[in-house]
Every structure is written in C-alpha cells, then in structure tokens.
C-alpha cells in the first residue's frame, strides 16, 4: 500500500474527550487545505469519535489504525477551512 505523505504529526496520548478533539481540531486549523495530519492517541473512544467528527466537519479521514496494545493513529487530509 502506498504511504501517505504526512505534513504534521501530533501526539495526544494521555488526553481524553473532548480535549482529544480540541487538540486535533486546532492542529487541522493550522494546516493548509490539502495538507495531511497524523494523530497518535491512546484513548479508544477518540479513535472512533475523532474520525466521525472530522468527517462531519468536512475533512477526509485517510486511515485509522491500531498500532499496538494501547495506541492508535489517525491520518486525515484537510479538505476545507
């Protein structure tokens, strides 16, 4: 599978809702349209809620993956301001 070029990475391990989304959203705001973000997190509920909320806000979720026993990564692309 082709690797996605990531423009920015954030680590929000240790955070719970809604601060997981607050941090993710602020990071997206700092991107230009078309740029990509990778989020590293360990709060399971956010591995479902962040992708859903980001899509509701018009962004594109590229990948959600559990990478080990505790952590997930979410990759997304900014589609709109």
């Amino acid at each position: 599978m082709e690797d996605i070029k990531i423009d920015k990475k954030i680590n929000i391990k240790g955070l719970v809702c809604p601060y997981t989304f607050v941090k993710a959203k602020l990071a997206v705001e700092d991107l230009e349209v078309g740029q990509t973000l990778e989020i590293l997190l360990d709060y399971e509920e956010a591995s479902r809620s962040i992708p859903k909320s980001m899509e509701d806000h018009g962004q594109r979720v590229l990948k959600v993956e559990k990478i080990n026993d505790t952590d997930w990564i979410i990759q997304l692309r900014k589609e709109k301001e």
Partner: protein
Amino acid sequence: MEFTEDQLQRYSRHIILPEVGGKGQKKILHSKVLIIGAGGLGCPVGYYLAAAGVGTIGMVDNDSVELSNLQRQIAHNTDRLGMLKVDSAKATFEALNPDAKVVGIKERLNKDNIMDFMKDYDIVVDGSDNFPTRYLVNDACVMLRKPLVSGAILRFEGQVTTIVPGEGHCYRCLFEEMPPAGLVPSCQEAGVIGAIPGVVGSLQAIEVFKLILGKGDVLKNTLLIYDALKTTFRRVKVPKNPVCPVCGDNPTITELQDYEAGYCRI
C-alpha cells in the same frame, strides 16, 4: 497567539463547535464590546461575554447597587449595596474569567461623551432603562456605523433587535420618535419578573457572538418579542425606512441631541 492549557480547557466547548473553532475563539478573545447599563440586561450580557472570553468589556453606568436591583441584576449581591454597579460587575466578571478585562465607565451618557466612549469598541449592546438613552445610543451607533444589539424588558415581556448600520433597519425605522411621557409606564406600573432580563440578555449575548464570529443570522430588520406569560416568541419584520430621520437616504438628524427624560427609570 497560542492558547494556554487553561484556555484550551476553559473554551473547549466553544472550540469543538464547527462555527467557532480555535479561530473563532481567538476572535472572541480579541473583541471589544461596550454594554450600556450594568442593570437587568447588562448583568447577564456581561456575564456571558466574560465567560466566553470577550477580551474587553466596557460598561457604562453611574448608578449604585440597591436592594431593589437584586431580584434580577445577577452580577451584584447583597454585600455590594451602595457600590457602583460598574465596580460590582467588574469584580464579578473578572473573578469568573481573568481573560476578560472590564472597563467601568462611571458616567451618564450624553451627546457630548457617547462618541468618545464608543469609538474603541467593535459592538455596542444597549441594556438601558430609558428612552432618551435608547435613542441617543441608536443615533450614535448609526453615525459611527457600529453594530448595536438592543434589548428591552417590561413586566413579562422582552424585545431584542440587532441594528447593523448600512445593512438593516435602525431603532428609528421601528419607532421614529420617542413616545410621549404619558404613554410610557409609570413607576408603579413598571414591574418586571426577575428572569426576563436573563432571557433577553442571553439572546443579546448570542447576537453579539454571531456578530463577532460572522456566523448565522442576526436579528437584522427583525424585532423579536418574547411573551413569557404565553411562552411565545414572535418575529416582526422591520424594514429599513428609506426616509428614516437618522439612517435614511437624506437624514435630518445629523448631530446627536440630548432628550428630556420625563420618564420613570425602570
């Protein structure tokens, strides 16, 4: 500017709203709002603006806190009887949120001082209790082209309208001249149920946030009337009057004037 960790927590419920976000919250933090009156309406408006982090809140009032105010003026309290209302409101709002700077203006508005008080603010909120001030504030906002969120309360009723000079109606498009003193309720007729200013002031605060954020539809060309006894909200269309004496095409009022206050102040 970057948010501090405290600000991320304090404003998290704003930031997660699509209509606000970090950018909108920063607009709120940098905004400057002038509130006319630190009474029934000024208290809840100021309370919510301060809670939201409006950076500068000006409040104009030269009255002191009286026991009869406390049934509805929620920024004041029993320990503050006799204190200037603007000082009491400043203490309450700055204790709620250190991001909000409250500037108390201990003056009565008149035609010679109002422009100077307004010039540094982005938005004006009218929570005054008398018609001379209401007309003076309207005329000054039209002349300075400042958005004005006007509220009024009496008994079980409240009214809200938002004036965006150059875009919509103004207060004189709605009521061209001040009503004669005999048509205005006298003191013993002018009761108000304590939570009415809470409803109307909250509506005014929301109008202010929409103006700051540039989101949603404000009450432009519209008067919203709340009837608490019937529990109804009614929207009345108020077209801009092309021959309005202050905001019309050929205005006849081009300078501010002071009006006689032959009314009871509620």
